[in-house]
Structures are given as C-alpha cells and as structure tokens.
C-alpha cells in the first residue's frame, strides 16, 4: 500500500481522540471519551440517542470545541477549530441529512464553496472532469450535469461521497448513512465502502443498526450516557452483546410473538387515490384489508405515499376516489373525530406536530381524545378530579417518566411523548390502530416498549396497520407485509416468505 489514496491525497494512518469532554449547560455530553480509527478500517460508533455519538463527531469535524481532551493525527496533536480545518486535515463528513442544494447540479454542488482554477469565475467543466475521474476510481456512478433534486436518495449519497473525496477526504465520518436507503441501496453502498476501506481510507460509521455494524465494520466503540463503554473487535461479537453494551442491560432480543389468530376484516381500503400536499397524486389505487388480531406492515422508502395513506384512513385528508371502511362501515370522507369515535386509533408519524399539543400538560394531552366525554367532562365542564385520577393511572401503567402531570408535554423526551400518545390511543380498546413510524427516533428501551404494546394489542384482537421505513421493525412485528412504491401496493407478502431482499426489490418498484 502506498501512502497516497486513489484520489491522490495522503492517507490518515491513525486518528486518535483522547479524553474528550464536552459540557453543555446542564448536560455532560462527552465524558472523557476515547476513540481511534486507522487507515483501512471501518470503525463503528454505536450508541442510543443522546449517548454522545454526534457530539463526538461534531468535535472531530470542528463544529464544536471540546472542553478537555486532545485529537492526535498520525501522532501529532492537532487543533480543529472549524470544518475548514477538518477538511484541511483530510477529514470529511457525510451528514445524515444531506448537505446538498437541491436546485443546483451535481457539479455546482461540488464546486460550491471551493476555490476555482479560474479565480472568481466558475470552472465547472474542470470540476465535472474531476468528478468523472473520481467516479471511475471509486465506482461511484454519478452524472455531473444532473440536477440534485432529480436524483434518488442513493445517488445523492454518492454525490456526498464525491464531494468529500473531491476535497481530499482520507477519513470519512458517516452519520447514520443507511437510514434513508433501501436494502439494495445499502448493499451497493457497502460495496463502495468496502472498496474505500481497501484503498486505505479510514471510515467512521455511526449507527444504531446492529446487523449493519456486524456486516461492515472491523471495530466498534460503544457509547452510553456520554461515556465510552468499550471498544471491541466486531469479529466474534454478537448482536445481543452489542445491544447490552448499548443499553446496559439485557436487550436486543427479538420480541416473542404468539401464533397468528386473525378474525374478521376490521379495516378495508379499496382503490383509494389521493393527492399529497403539493397536489400531486400520492396514492394510485391502493387496496388492502387488515383483520382483527393481525399486524399488517406497510414497508416502503420514505415519501412513497405512506403518510398520505395514514392521513386518508384517519380522515385527515380527503380521498379523491375509493373507499375506506372500518368494521364494515364506510368512513370515507368522515371527519377525524367521527373516524376515531368509530374505533380508530392513530399514532401519527410527526408525533410532536400531529400527535399532541406541545404546550399542553401531560394530563391535557392524555385526555385530548375524549376530553368532551365522561368521565373527563361533566355537563360541559372538565372534571378535574377524574382527569387527574385517570391520567395518573395511565402515566403509571405506561411507565411515562414525567416530573408531574402538569409538565408541558414539550419538555419530555421523544420516548415518553410516544408513551403518552400510546396511552391515549390504545387505553380505550380500539378496533383498529394505524401506527406510522411509531419508533422513529426512539432509543432501544422505548422501542422495545412500543413493540411490546403493539403486540399486546394484536393478541387482544386489534387490527393494526404498522407503517414503517424500518424494515427490521416490520419483519419483527408484522404478520403480513405490504410494500408501497410510488403510491401503489407492489406486493402483499406473508411474513414467512418475506426476506429483506424480496421486500427491497418491491420497495424499489420492481414488480414481483
């Protein structure tokens, strides 16, 4: 191996972060964290939300300054004051939310903020030539003239990698890079990363998906509550061990499911078509049934009509044609209130926006659904005693961690907010649950809790539609899996026949 990378830039042999401490007002985000990465390896940084992964990487990329600790690059202590410094040292970052300007072309995005060979004039032809050269060297298929918003998510990610390589990145920080990809795109992406690893790049892979860490990485460092729990070789480590390191107690086991005991159709969707916010067709003739006692998973890449479908079923968005029935009764066009009264529970995707009122207290949010009915209401007035008693009960039985019932909901963590929504939505024995991305952004503990509750509802005979972009979640919970792509149901696969590969093809719109 030479000291130069295929891109012509020098390698980073060893990067070390030692005793990194970062305090924010009231929080110790990093507590003497040690981390290192070498050329030719993928080092995973694993941890729950709030474990300190992002803080650590933001320090490495110059976005934050550490209060204590040092960064050594090839043995030399360096000071990284800004992203510009990081880039100068050969450190690149692929952000989870792509840092691309959608209305510009690929080459313009690459040229943005760089020095041009024609001083103040753009040198887009030269940039394009270099992009093509890098694309060839790293097997990244990218058209320099394409406008970014027209590219698929996978292609946009390749543009991000090209951007980093263009600037001479020898070390790449990959912040949850697979969160937005289909399984096939993940596979292609891993091939690219494997090649970069062989070529001598150092890669840091931030994730909470254990199987990806095991598939791709050489070493893994686990963070919890801002501290390093340990660094270990991935070889010979199991998912369970990693999960336990992450949460500090036995975890990460597949939820146990009772055999399927499905009954009558509770939710029926027939030839539904609907428009999205921009007035474009988002659902193109969607039909399916959900039976009592089963969980039907709706898999798909983000933005293929899932949100529109959930909103149509909940009565929040009109269907332009087709029919939705609940327990055999046509509910198309009824108001959300009527649909809920007929037995629908809706766990919305945007829980902070659609699932609750942020400024309201915990108790007020719990009664939001039935505030005007007994026992919460008495002759048009709120019955505070009953509200206090019932919300206290629900807060206890759903393990909501809150300072008090009078705390504004916005002060709680995502997991506790989701528990409040669950408490409100499922405590009244619904006929049908529509759960959209119910565990997005939650930590392992809260995720397991939500899963257990959904399975409990299933066993009690509720019909559940689980809309999720997390294929692992769908595979863990669903009895039957629908795949949506571009507003059409591409397939209806029984759980026993479902594999990530098969679903991935359907998610990408390939007819089976």
């Amino acid at each position, binding site marked *: 191996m030479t000291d130069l990378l295929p891109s012509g830039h020098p390698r980073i042999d060893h990067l070390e972060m030692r005793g990194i401490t970062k305090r924010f007002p009231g929080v110790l985000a990093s507590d003497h964290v040690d981390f290192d990465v070498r050329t030719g390896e993928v080092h995973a940084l694993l941890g729950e939300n709030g474990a300190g992964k992002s803080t650590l990487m933001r320090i490495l990329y110059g976005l934050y300054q550490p209060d204590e600790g040092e960064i050594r690059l090839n043995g030399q202590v360096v000071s990284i004051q800004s992203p*510009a410094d990081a880039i100068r040292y050969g450190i690149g970052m692929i*952000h989870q*939310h*792509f840092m691309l*300007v959608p209305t*510009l072309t690929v080459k*313009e995005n690459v040229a*943005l903020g*760089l*020095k041009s060979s024609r001083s103040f004039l753009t040198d887009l032809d030269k940039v394009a030539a270099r992009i093509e050269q890098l694309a060839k060297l790293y097997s990244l298929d990218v058209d320099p003239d394409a406008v970014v918003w027209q590219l698929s998510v996978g292609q946009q990610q390749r543009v991000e990698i090209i951007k980093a390589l263009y600037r001479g990145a020898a070390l790449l920080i990959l912040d949850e890079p697979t969160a937005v990809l289909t399984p096939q795109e993940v596979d292609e992406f891993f091939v690219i990363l494997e090649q970069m690893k062989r070529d001598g790049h150092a890669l840091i892979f931030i994730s909470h998906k254990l199987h990806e860490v095991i598939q791709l990485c050489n070493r893994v460092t686990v963070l919890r509550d801002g501290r390093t729990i340990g660094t270990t070789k991935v070889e010979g480590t199991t998912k369970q061990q990693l999960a336990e390191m992450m949460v500090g107690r036995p975890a990460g086991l597949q939820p146990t499911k009772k055999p399927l005991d499905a009954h009558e159709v509770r939710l029926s969707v027939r030839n539904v078509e609907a428009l999205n916010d921009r007035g474009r067709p988002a659902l193109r003739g969607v039909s399916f049934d959900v039976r009592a006692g089963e969980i039907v998973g709706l898999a798909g890449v983000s933005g293929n009509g899932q949100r529109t479908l959930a909103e149509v079923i909940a009565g929040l968005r009109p269907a332009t044609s087709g029919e939705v029935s609940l327990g055999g009764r046509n509910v198309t066009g009824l108001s959300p209130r009527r649909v809920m009264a007929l037995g629908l529970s809706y766990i919305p995707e945007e829980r902070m926006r659609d699932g609750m009122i942020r400024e309201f207290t915990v108790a007020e949010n719990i009664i939001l659904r039935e505030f005007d009915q007994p026992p919460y209401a008495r002759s048009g007035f709120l019955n505070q005693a009953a509200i206090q008693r019932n919300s206290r009960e629900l807060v206890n039985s759903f393990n909501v961690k809150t300072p008090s019932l009078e705390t504004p909901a916005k002060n709680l963590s995502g997991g506790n907010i989701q528990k409040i929504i669950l408490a409100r939505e499922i405590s009244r024995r619904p006929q049908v649950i529509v759960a959209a991305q119910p565990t997005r952004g939650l930590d392992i503990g809260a995720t397991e809790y939500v899963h257990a509750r959904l399975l409990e509802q299933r066993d009690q005979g509720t019909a559940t539609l689980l809309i999720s972009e997390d294929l692992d979640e769908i595979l863990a919970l669903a009895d039957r899996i629908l795949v949506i792509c571009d507003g059409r149901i591409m397939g209806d696969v029984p759980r026993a026949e479902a594999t990530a590969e098969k679903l991935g093809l359907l998610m990408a719109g390939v007819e089976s």
Partner: protein
Amino acid sequence: MNDSQLIAILASIVLQASPLIIAVCGEILTERSGVVNLSLDGSMLMAAMTGFVVGMKTDSYWIGFLAAAVVGAIFAAIVAFGSIRLGQSQVAIGFVLTLLGDDLSAFLGQNYVRQTGVVVPRAGIPLLKDIPILGPILFNQNIVVYFAILLIIGTWWWLNRTQAGLRLRGAGERPTAAFARGVDVNRVRYAYTILGGALVGIAGAAYSLNVKIGWSDGHVRGFGWIALAIVIFGGWSPIRGAFGALLFGATKALATALQRAFPEVSVVAFNAIPWALMILVLLAVGSDYTERFIEAMPRRWQRPLRRVLRVSPPMALGTAFHEG
C-alpha cells in the same frame, strides 16, 4: 402611426422601464441570497428624494445617484441587521420601513417640491445608435438606460458564471448545505442585501433625475411594489425580470394610447390596466393552473414552457439561518 412614432414609443418604454429594471435586479440579488427586502416602496421614495435634492445642491447627478445608493443601502442594511442579527421578521421590518420611507421622504422633501434640479443628459452611443430600429430604441438613450441594460447581463452572469454567484445561490436555496461547504451564509446575505438596496436606491434616483424628473410628495409611490411583483413574475431571473419590467412599461404605454383613442372613458380605468394585468400574472404564474396548462400542451413543448412559466422562489427565502 408611422414607424418613427412607433420607435419613439418603444424607446420611451425602455426609458420608463429602466428604473424598474435596476430595482428588480437589485432585489433579485437580495432575494436569491435568501432575504426579502420588502421596504422597496419606502426606500425608493427616500432615494428619489435624496438623489434629487443632493443632485440639485451639488449640481451633479453623479453625486445625486451616489447619495441615493447610500440611502437604499442603509434601508437594506436595517432589514439585514434586524433579520440576521436581531432575528426579527424580514417582512415586518420591511413593512415598517416602507411606511417610514414614505412619510420621511414627504417630510424631508417638503421644501423641494416642484423645483428644478439636475437631469441626466441624453448621450447616444456613437455607431450603435445608428443601427436601424434597435439603435434609436436602445442606444440613443442615456447613462441610466445603459446601466440598466448592463445590469441585466451582469446580474445574470454573476449569478450563473461566478463562484460568488454559486455561493449566493447556495445561501438562498439551502443555507445549511452552503454553510457546511464553508460559505459564511450570513455574511453573504448582508453583502447582497446591502448591494441590492444600493441598486434599489439608484433606481429611485433614476426616476427623480431621469424618468420622472423632480420631486413631489409620494413621487414614485407604488413603483417599489411593482418591482417586488416583477421579481416574482420574473421567477427571480434578471432576464425574465427585465422582460417583466418592459411588459409593465408597455401596458402603461398601451393604456396611454387607449386613453387617447377613447377620451370618453375615465382616466382611472386605463391607469388600472397594468395593475390588473400584474395581478392576473401573479395569480397564474406558479399556480396549479399553470401546471395543468403545461400538461395539456404537446409533450415537446412542455419542458421549454415549464422553464418559462414555472416559478419557484429560492427555497430558503425569508427564513433565518443559524449556524451550528
């Protein structure tokens, strides 16, 4: 109407449109960086008054323009400071400044109403002005018109052909992405808001020193709003914006001509024509109906039509940007 009359009308449309073109280019630079300077109507009034008075006192229209540019830049700087530094609403600040400029110009300019000052002299460009038709329309004008024409090309070129233009567009479309690429988004926004404001100031003086010479209470009232509307109509492109300004000038000329032809109809009715057209265009451009109209056209026309008719503002227009 003979040819020379038509050419005279066209030349006058170009002259009438020149201040609007300057203001539109200035506001496009500002808005493409992500800031709305809504104070145009007020700052143009202040700049028109200042330009006229300073020109008169110094007996130099150059110094008048300079003073007007400074006034426009100050108004814009207030918008920039209030929104970027103080985190206030760009729209609210712009509105208040509009009202302020209107009243302040009336107050400060009250002693200069209907006085004679300096004017920009006609200066035909040798050779070019002798080109048939185009010569008299475009090149037998004066420095203000030439500046407007150069500004259209210059703005387009700056936006599309320079590194600085790329940074400017990045800051207005997706500031977080631009910032991650080392662009100092807020500095870019300050710079283009102030530059755009200076151009708006020059546009104000282009009225009082060239197109609508002199000063009176509310001398150029309404033209700032027109310029803001043309920026939208022009889809934030200087070339389409200039076209919009000329179209507006043409409808005004048409209204004048119609008025002569039908003297029995009220003056007010004809004066309203350009505004009504403006509203129609604003409603149509970028709406659902435009898209349906485009989709009804033959397939090979759709792409060019969409380029001309579809309008989308800079994605981060009017939003604050915070680092980190």
